[in-house]
């Protein structure tokens, strides 16, 4: 028990290295540390608790299988969320849910002008903060899975754009422009009150 408590002081990368060196408790601590984060991310991405539990299990099985190949010089959080994102993409594909929105346009900047320059009173402005929290989850589920995952990673998990670029294996600028477009879509949804 005390051993586990001491291990909780180690960084993720140190724990991953210790597990590779044969310490089973290191993996246990890592799973305890990341279970709420991964489950929360999956749950918000799919909005189905029993399915989120199954997917979380699947993600941690992949983590266990791959942890010996993990490079401790890279961020563990980025690595685990890469696995989580890929697992979710596979899930959406199996469910035949398009991961990228079909109405997505490439000229993200002109969209910003169109949307933000609008003078219409927004539903957002009328929303009280507490109501927004409740409704945000519902609106997030209306976005395409890719946009939803991006917003959840950036705003929910506080993962930087650079880290998301590593997770998605995309250029940094692409991630930033996709984030901007995702926000626009979210805002449009909220404005329309769909």
């Amino acid at each position, binding site marked *: 028990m005390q051993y586990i408590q001491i291990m909780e002081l180690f960084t993720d990368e140190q724990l991953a290295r210790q597990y590779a060196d044969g310490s089973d408790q290191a993996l246990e601590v890592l799973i305890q540390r990341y279970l709420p984060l991964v489950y*929360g991310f999956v749950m918000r991405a799919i909005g189905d608790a029993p399915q989120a539990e199954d997917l*979380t299990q699947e993600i941690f099985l992949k983590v266990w299988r791959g942890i010996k190949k993990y490079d401790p010089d890279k961020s563990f959080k980025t690595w685990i969320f890469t696995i989580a994102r890929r697992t979710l993409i596979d899930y959406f594909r199996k469910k035949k849910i398009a991961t990228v929105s079909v109405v997505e346009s490439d000229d993200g900047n002109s969209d910003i*002008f169109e949307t933000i320059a609008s003078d219409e009173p927004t539903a957002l402005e009328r929303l009280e903060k507490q109501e927004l929290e409740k409704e945000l989850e519902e609106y997030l589920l209306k976005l395409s899975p890719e946009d939803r995952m991006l917003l959840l990673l950036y705003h929910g998990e506080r993962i930087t754009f650079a880290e998301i670029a590593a997770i998605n294996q995309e250029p940094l600028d692409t991630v930033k422009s996709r984030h901007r477009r995702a926000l626009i879509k979210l805002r449009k949804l909220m404005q329309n009150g769909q």
Partner: protein
Amino acid sequence: MVNDKLHHFLFLYVYINMNNEMDKDAFERKIESAFDSMIAVQPHERLFSDVMLAIYRKQVLYFRLKLAAAISMVAAFGMSAILWGKAALLEFAGSETWMLVKMLFSDYKAVISNWQVYSTYLVESLPVASAIWLMLGAFVALLAFKILIQELAHRPRRLTH
């Protein structure tokens, strides 16, 4: 005149952009604040033990597969080594090598005086092919045995605390 229009247009463009940036930031701030205030989705208490159990089951499955493979290899190559060993012994008993070895005891003075010729004949008469097969079988069997011992030492145990 043209310059004035251009200046006016540029002013409007910068002004609209500035407002857009402010508006965009306000929306992002709202979203940030909403995300911050969102109640964290907590997994069910049993999810941790479910995850650990799933990993343990996989560990046990892989352990059994590796164990079965190692036992099969020890058995197969051990048997091969024994059979090749027997064949090598029979070959050795009927070979020139055995006669040369017997000569060492019966006529050692002659062997000592012609030790260089004797050594050459002895080396040439050795059943090399059988010896190689015997050593190969024994080597692989020992290697598989080592893996078996390592696997047994690191057999999976259930993690809970």
